[in-house]
């Protein structure tokens, strides 16, 4: 019965009897533009993102001032990690600074803007991007026979919260994220020696760090 009904309709397509209008072609849906929300924010303090390490050795018999000068330039933006942040005291092993790397992910522009707006309300020093430059210097006093260390980098504000998106079903919702937001460049300095721990240790003062550039 259905065929009998349809065939006359098809045969009726002629110049004198134009075909009925075609069904509308679905138009492509607009590219999904999620709305990000960063909430349930918990302050986790600050830590230095080390971008340069400078050292000096005092081979004289007296304490003396030494100037450390940075040799690298770099910029840091807002970053995220699905891992819970652990800050580290910068460790010394055989005279070298050891910083445990943590895998960080870049945050997209839109999400970064939302995070920046949220965090900037409570901490006006937070920036979307901060830089260190070669040529920055700091002077420290190093005891005789000791080594001085200068960790140069960006102080990062560390928070933990839920970064969620609305409007795109394929995006994960309410992902707990640790967010690193840059504030300003800083030096953290300390000395070690002349007596040392050959199996590793720390210097005369603590530098809380989140990782070195190689770990990013």
């Amino acid at each position, binding site marked *: 019965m259905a065929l009998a009904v349809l065939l006359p309709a098809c045969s009726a397509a002629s110049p004198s009897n134009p075909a009925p209008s075609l069904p509308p072609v679905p138009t492509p849906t607009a590219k999904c533009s999620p709305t990000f929300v960063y909430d349930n924010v918990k302050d986790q303090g600050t830590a230095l993102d080390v971008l340069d390490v400078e050292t000096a050795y005092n081979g004289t018999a007296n304490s003396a001032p030494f100037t450390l000068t940075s040799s690298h330039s770099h910029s840091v933006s807002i970053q995220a990690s699905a891992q819970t942040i652990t800050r580290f005291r910068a460790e010394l092993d055989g005279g070298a600074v050891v910083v445990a790397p943590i895998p960080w992910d870049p945050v997209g522009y839109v999400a970064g803007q939302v995070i920046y707006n949220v965090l900037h309300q409570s901490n006006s020093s937070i920036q979307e991007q901060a830089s260190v430059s070669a040529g920055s210097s700091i002077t420290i006093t190093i005891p005789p026979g000791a080594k001085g260390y200068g960790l140069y980098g960006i102080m990062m504000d560390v928070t933990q919260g839920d970064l969620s998106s609305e409007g795109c079903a394929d995006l994960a919702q309410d992902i707990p994220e640790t967010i690193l937001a840059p504030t300003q460049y800083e030096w953290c300095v300390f000395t*070690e020696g*002349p*007596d040392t*721990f050959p199996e590793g*240790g720390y210097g005369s*003062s603590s530098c809380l760090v989140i990782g070195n550039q190689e770990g990013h």
Partner: protein
Amino acid sequence: MNKTAWGALAVAALGAGIAVSIAVGPSGPGNGISGLAVGTGYDASQHVATGQAADFAPDQNIYVVFTVQSRSSGPEVEVSLLRNGSLEGVSLPIKAAKGRTVYDVPVTIGGPGIVTIEVSYNGAVQQTMQIKVG
């Protein structure tokens, strides 16, 4: 704790850069550090510092030996070095085992002077001694 567990503890401690040995003496009731000694070597079988002295030569390798008594595992023990009252450095923290354990921490001493050695238990200095270098 059985031998396997002690072995795992020793491996973990060595991985953290700290040598460890197990004392066989009875456990007492208190927590803390005792028996601080410094020598030019460490006898792992007797759990004692060998070549104990108060004077050492510059650039010599020495061993700081002490006993940790703890009723629970996990207290943090650190060795600090000072010259003229100024902190020179701090050892990697030791997560002490439950019971009575002898630890040895190697130190490379520098030039002439008086070195103060402090051993702290959960941040509180409990044992101190001075050595003369040169």
